[in-house]
C-alpha cells in the first residue's frame, strides 16, 4: 500500500449468480483513497456503486460474490485485505462500524422503529467505545449535539417516527460518527432530502470531516452534490471506472465520452433556455454475457469500429491524477494503448485467417 492511503481497491469484481445467468456487476474496479479526502463515485443507476461499497464493508448478499483486493490501513490490524477476512468473523466486525462507518440513503430503514434514537446510537457507542453506562450515554449525547440536533435531552428518548427526515439523517450521521471512524461510506445520503435540508447535511458532513480527519467515499448520481463535496471523482459505467480525476479537472476538462455526456446533460441554471439538453442516446446494457468490447460502445458518438467493439480499453493515466479508459483519446498514453491493441487485433486476425 502507498504511504498516506487509507484504502486501495484493486481489480474488484462482483459476480451475481442469478437464475438467468451470471451478472458481472462490478468488472475490475481500481481506485485508491488518501487519508482525509473525499472521493465521489458517480454513474448511472445499476453501474455497481452500491455493490462496490458493500464489498468494502463485507455486507454483500450471499449470491453476490466479490473478488480482487481491498487493502485498508487499519488501526487495529495494520494493513489488511478486507476481502480476505471472514465476512462473519471478529476481524471485519472490529473494522465495520468502528474504523469504517456508513450512511445509507433511507434513514427510516436504518433505524428500528421499536427503540428510541438515543438507545440505538448508544448501542454503537457501547459496542465500540465503552461499556460504562453513564459515560457511553454522555458520549452518545455529545455526538448528537455535534451533528446539530437541538434539545438532545428530549430527543434522546424519542422514537424515529418523531423525527423529520432531515433530523433522522442527522441522527444517522451521529450513529456513524460515534466511534471516530477513519473512513465514512456515504451511499446517496441526501437523495431523499429537500435542497435546503440537503445543503445543511452536506455542510455538516464537511465540518465533521475536518474535525475527525476522516476520508469519505461519497456515492451519488447528483453532479451538483459532487461539485460541492468532493476532492476527487471516479466515474463508473457498467461496472468499471472509466475516468477519475480531481473534481475541478473532471468538470473543467472531462475526457471520457461518457463523462462528457454526463456533465453536458446537466442543465445549468441561467444557461439559455431554447437550448435542448444534451443527452446520451440509448440505455445502459445489462451486465450479462457482455461482449469483449468497450461497455459504452453502443452509446458512444466517437466510437471506432473494429477497435472499440473488439477490445476493452484499460484505465490509463493521461496527466498526474487524471485517468481515463478510452481508445479515442488524443493523449499519448492512450494512443500508445490503442496502437498496442490494434497491433494485437491485427495479429489475431491474421492467425484466424
Amino acid at each position, binding site marked *: 500500500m502507498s504511504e498516506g492511503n487509507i484504502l486501495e481497491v484493486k481489480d474488484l469484481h462482483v459476480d451475481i449468480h442469478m437464475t438467468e445467468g451470471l451478472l458481472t456487476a462490478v468488472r475490475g474496479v481500481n481506485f485508491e483513497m488518501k487519508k482525509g479526502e473525499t472521493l465521489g463515485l458517480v454513474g*448511472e*443507476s445499476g453501474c455497481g456503486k452500491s455493490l462496490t461499497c458493500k464489498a468494502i464493508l463485507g455486507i454483500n448478499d450471499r449470491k453476490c460474490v466479490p473478488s480482487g483486493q481491498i487493502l485498508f490501513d487499519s488501526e487495529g490490524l495494520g494493513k489488511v485485505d478486507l476481502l480476505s477476512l471472514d465476512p462473519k468473523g471478529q476481524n471485519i466486525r472490529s473494522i465495520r462500524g468502528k474504523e469504517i462507518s456508513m450512511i445509507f440513503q433511507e434513514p427510516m430503514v436504518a433505524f428500528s422503529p421499536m427503540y428510541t434514537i438515543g438507545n440505538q446510537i448508544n448501542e454503537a457507542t457501547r459496542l465500540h467505545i465503552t461499556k460504562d453506562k453513564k459515560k457511553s450515554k454522555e458520549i452518545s449525547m455529545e455526538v448528537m449535539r455535534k451533528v446539530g440536533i437541538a434539545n438532545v435531552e428530549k430527543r434522546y428518548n424519542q422514537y424515529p417516527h418523531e423525527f*423529520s*427526515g*432531515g*433530523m433522522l439523517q442527522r441522527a444517522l450521521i451521529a450513529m456513524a460518527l460515534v466511534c471516530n471512524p477513519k473512513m465514512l461510506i456515504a451511499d446517496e445520503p441526501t437523495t431523499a*432530502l*429537500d*435542497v*435546503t*435540508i*440537503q*445543503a*445543511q447535511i*452536506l*455542510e455538516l458532513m464537511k465540518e465533521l470531516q475536518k474535525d475527525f480527519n476522516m476520508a469519505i467515499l461519497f456515492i451519488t*448520481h*447528483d*453532479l*451538483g*452534490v*459532487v*461539485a*460541492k463535496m468532493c476532492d476527487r471523482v471516479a466515474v463508473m459505467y457498467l461496472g468499471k471506472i472509466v475516468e477519475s480525476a480531481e*473534481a*475541478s479537472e473532471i*468538470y*473543467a476538462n472531462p475526457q471520457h465520452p461518457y463523462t462528457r*455526456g*454526463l*456533465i453536458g*446533460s*446537466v*442543465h*445549468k*441554471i*441561467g*444557461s*439559455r*433556455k431554447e*437550448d*435542448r*439538453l*444534451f*443527452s*446520451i*442516446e440509448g*440505455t*445502459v446494457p445489462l451486465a450479462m454475457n457482455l461482449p469483449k468490447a468497450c461497455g459504452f460502445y453502443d452509446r458512444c458518438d466517437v466510437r471506432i469500429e473494429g477497435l472499440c467493439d473488439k477490445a476493452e480499453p484499460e484505465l490509463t493515466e493521461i496527466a498526474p491524477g487524471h485517468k481515463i479508459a478510452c481508445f479515442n483519446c488524443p493523449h499519448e498514453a492512450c494512443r500508445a494503448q490503442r496502437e498496442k491493441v490494434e497491433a494485437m487485433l491485427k495479429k489475431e486476425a491474421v492467425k484466424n485467417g
Partner: protein
Amino acid sequence: MDKENILEVKGLHKRFTSKGVTVKAVTDVSFNVKPGETIGIVGESGCGKTTLGRCIVRAYSASEGEVFYRTKSGEELDFLKADKKKMKEIRKEIQMIFQDPYSSLDPRMTVLDIIKEPLRANYPNMSKDEMDQKAKAMAEKVGLNPTYLMRYPHAFSGGQRQRIGIARALVIEPQIIVCDEAVSALDVSIQAQVINLLRDLQKELKLTYLFISHDLSVVEHISDKVGVMYLGQMVEFAPAEELFEKPRHPYTEALLSAVPVADPTIQMNRIPLKGEIPNPANPPSGCYFHERCHYCIDKCRTDSPKLTTTQDGRSCACHRADELGLRGFTYDENAKTQKAGK
C-alpha cells in the same frame, strides 16, 4: 374566465382530516395558465405540490375554491359545478404523469395494453383496430420501439417506463398534462432524454404542462413560469427567468441559495434556514414562514400575507416584498456560464 387562459385556479383549498386532525395541504392557491405554457411548481417535501396537481386532474376534489377550464371545444367549465358528463370530458383533457415509473404501470399488462387503457376507458365504442393504431402511433412518437409493445413493463429501464407513462397520458390527446416529479427518479443522462422528449411533444401537440419537481435546475430549464409553495401556500409566482434572477420571497431566496451547482468553481453562499419545516396540521400564526425568516418583523407574526402584486408587477406573498432586495442567480449574457449571488 379570461379569454387568454386555458386554466384558472382561484382560492383553492384542500384539507385532509383523519382522527380529528386536519391538515391544510393546500391553502388559498390562485394562478392562471395560458395554453402552451409550462408552469413549474417547486417547494419542500410536503408543501402540497402533489395535492395541488391532483386537485387539478380531479383525482381529489377541492375543499374550497374554484378551477375554471377551457375545453378543446372552447367551452368554459367550472370544475366544481360541472356535471358527470362534463367531468369526464375534463378528465380526458387533463392527464397526469406520475413520479414513480415502476409502480405506476400494471405489471400484468403488456405495454400496448397499458397505452390503450385510457382509450378503452374513454371511448367504449372505438374499434380495437383503431385503438391499436392510435396506441402504436403514440408509442412511436415517444420513441418506443414497436417490437417492445407486446412485452411487460418489468422488462424496461426507468427511462423507457417513463416513456410508456407519457404515451399513456398522451394517447387520448389531452390539452394539459400534470407531470409530478416525472423525471426525478431517472438518471442524469436519461433525464435529459425525457425532458427533450417532453419539450418536443409540447411543441408538436401544443400541450400545456404543470411541471412539479423539487429539482430547481430542471424546473428552470423547462418552465415559462414558476410557482413556489411553502406549507400549502403559493408564496411566489413569476416568469422563470425573473424568479431565478430576482426572487421576491425570502423563502425563494433561501431555496435558490441551496441548489447544488454542478461546477466546483462556484461557491454558493447558502442562506441557512432556521429551524424545521412546521407541522402542516398546526401551522404558525401570521406568515407561515416567519419562524424561519431572516427578515421577519412584528407584523409577520400576526398578519398573514396574501399573494399580491408588487410595485413592479410581480406576485409574492410577503409583507416586505417591495422593500427587500433579495439575491438570486445572476445571468451571464456572453457565455452559458452562471455566477452565484450578486
